[in-house]
């Protein structure tokens, strides 16, 4: 074997790789950041568990139901909002809480009787957010624990360890979706998440396309034409937005046609969010073009940034399992507004008013990205 040549080739590869500092930083930063993200989500044994936001409506207002309510509120696993049934159910439907527990009228009278004598059991309705159904199991388990404890206290300990008794109530799990007659379609959320992710990838290509045009001299030809800077950048924003909009339309056409996803909310709101997200995508692409150096390094960095945004946006794992600080932080990530907005207009079946905030936030991010892009855009030709 020609060892000199072999050593020279190996050395060449190492020098080329390690001299590309952006690629090197990416290779190191990406696993660290993603590992830190998942580590933060799933926590360590010593971490304080994330409190699950739930809503509680007490239609009974009996001693027993109040005791159950107090126990639920005292449970460190929950962060409880209480109020009228309709308002609490609406909170679940908007995704503000993972579940809304409705203690029915007559619970205080019927539950002890059902426990001791059998007969009709009161029904505790749990309206839950079907996109985050994993929380439902925990809610149901803790609810049972608190009902049994409160009941035991009220009947003198008879319910403790009540292995021979049946549960003195039943729970009715109600999906908080647009229509009671239409079950939650899990494709709705996954299409929102993946649509957002891959359309942002298209936005990356818009930005990398500008960088390639610079490298190929095409940008020089465009700049030599009698065109203003705003026209040049504006054309990229519009073409990128139109492309994003077409892609989103095709993705949702497939979702609706094949996977029976429905826009149960405001169609105008859905279109508004789609347009705002399309503008966000193209302004994100322009930002990439403005701050990127080489197409190769920029593509890697932008994909990494997109994946982080998508993770924080709740497209990969539900945001409720994020630690509280991360849930708060994710509100300043545009993908969170896009995914939540599309969810709201599809399976949540919310009205146009629920689309307003996502549209405003997406447009605000678009303006921010575009402003930074215009500020940072290098209009000078490469120095020679």
């Amino acid at each position: 074997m020609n060892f000199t040549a072999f050593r020279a080739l190996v050395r060449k590869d190492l020098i080329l790789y390690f001299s590309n500092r952006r690629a090197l930083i990416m290779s190191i930063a990406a696993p660290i950041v993603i590992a830190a993200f998942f580590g933060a989500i799933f926590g360590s044994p010593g971490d304080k568990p994330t409190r699950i936001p739930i809503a509680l409506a007490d239609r009974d207002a009996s001693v027993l139901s109040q005791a159950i309510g107090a126990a639920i509120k005292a449970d460190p696993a929950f962060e409880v909002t209480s109020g009228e049934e309709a308002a609490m159910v609406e909170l679940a439907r908007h995704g503000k809480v993972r579940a809304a527990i409705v203690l029915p009228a007559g619970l205080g009278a019927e539950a002890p009787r059902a426990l001791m004598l059998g007969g009709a059991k009161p029904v505790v309705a749990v309206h839950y957010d079907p996109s985050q159904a994993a929380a439902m199991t925990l809610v149901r388990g803790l609810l049972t624990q608190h009902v049994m404890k409160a009941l035991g206290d009220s009947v003198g300990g008879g319910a403790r360890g009540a292995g021979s008794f049946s549960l003195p109530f039943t729970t009715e799990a109600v999906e908080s979706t647009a229509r009671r007659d239409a079950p939650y379609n899990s494709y709705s959320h996954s299409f929102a998440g993946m649509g957002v992710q891959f359309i942002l990838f298209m936005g990356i290509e818009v930005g990398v396309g500008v960088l390639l045009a610079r490298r190929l001299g095409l940008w020089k030809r465009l700049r030599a034409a009698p065109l203003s800077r705003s026209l040049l950048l504006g054309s990229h924003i519009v073409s990128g937005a139109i492309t994003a909009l077409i892609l989103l339309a095709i993705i949702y056409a497939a979702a609706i046609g094949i996977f029976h996803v429905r826009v149960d909310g405001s169609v105008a709101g859905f279109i508004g969010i789609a347009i705002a997200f399309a503008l966000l995508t193209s302004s994100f692409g322009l930002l990439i073009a403005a701050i990127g150096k080489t197409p190769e390094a920029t593509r890697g960095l932008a994909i990494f940034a997109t994946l982080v945004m998508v993770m924080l946006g709740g497209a990969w794992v539900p945001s409720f399992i994020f630690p509280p600080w991360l849930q708060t932080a994710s509100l300043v990530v545009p993908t969170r507004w896009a995914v939540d907005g599309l969810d709201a207009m599809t399976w949540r079946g919310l009205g146009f008013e629920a689309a307003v905030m996502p549209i405003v936030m997406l447009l605000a991010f678009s303006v921010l990205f575009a402003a930074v892009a215009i500020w940072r855009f290098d209009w000078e030709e490469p120095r020679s």
Partner: protein
Amino acid sequence: MLEAQGLGKSYGNRQVVAGLSLSVAAGEIVGLLGPNGAGKSTTVAMLCGLVAADQGRVFVGDGTRRLELTEDTPGAKRRIGVVPQELSIYENLGAAANLMLFGALYGLAGALLRERVEAALQLVGLADRAGDKPQLFSGGMKRRLNIAAALVHDPDILIFDEPTVGVDPQSRNAIFDNLELLKDRGKALLYTTHYMEEAERLCDRVVIMDHGQVVASDTLQGLYKRLPAVATLELEVDGAVDLAALGKEPGITRPTQDGARLHAGVADLGQAAPALLSWLAARGHAVHRISSGRADLEDIFLSLTGRQLRD
């Protein structure tokens, strides 16, 4: 038609172009020559309005149609066509589609645009490939399309930044024919290159740059007159020649020796050749071959800057 007055450009502390002035008249081809790093590309970028000059001004047009070129004067930019050094065409758009796009950037539309596209493709010999994508073209064809893209809006001034890099001789000749045709049509052409033979074949006047400054600007005849030697002698001789002594002989300039090959510039071929042969014979150097040639732009550049053009 195109006039630059005292252009200057710095990047940080590095002065790339300093006090550069040049002009190109209608029906004239002016060559802009200089080695790599001389400031040609920055000069071209300023002449196209791609880079704002720190000092100086650029004007296009004559008389009442004279306009100062700035980024915000579309009227001036519209009269310039630029052929960048790179292949600045969209590989996956058809040839005609490329030209339609570039024509539209200059405000052309409809029948006029289609007419101009056909004319530009005709000129560069690609009319029969109008629908084909450049990714299927040879390097020479792509270069010709690159030129056509600058012609489609029928500009008065054309700026070519080394348009024949990597082009085969046949395509190069076709490009030269195009440029001469454009010159005959009254266009003003600025042509940057570091190929001497291209400048000698094409250019009416030559501007030579070095270190960001114009070191000479004249017609080819005018430049040759500046040379201390108008002809060269090349001889194959035995032994090492005393070049210092030879250089002091009247009518002999810059003698160099590379192995057996002795090269020298001479002011008058008729007088210098016999004198040189006698001088060599007197010092015992046998001469096996002798040839003469005319001094070229390479010699002019060497005499002006002390450097080879392709250093």
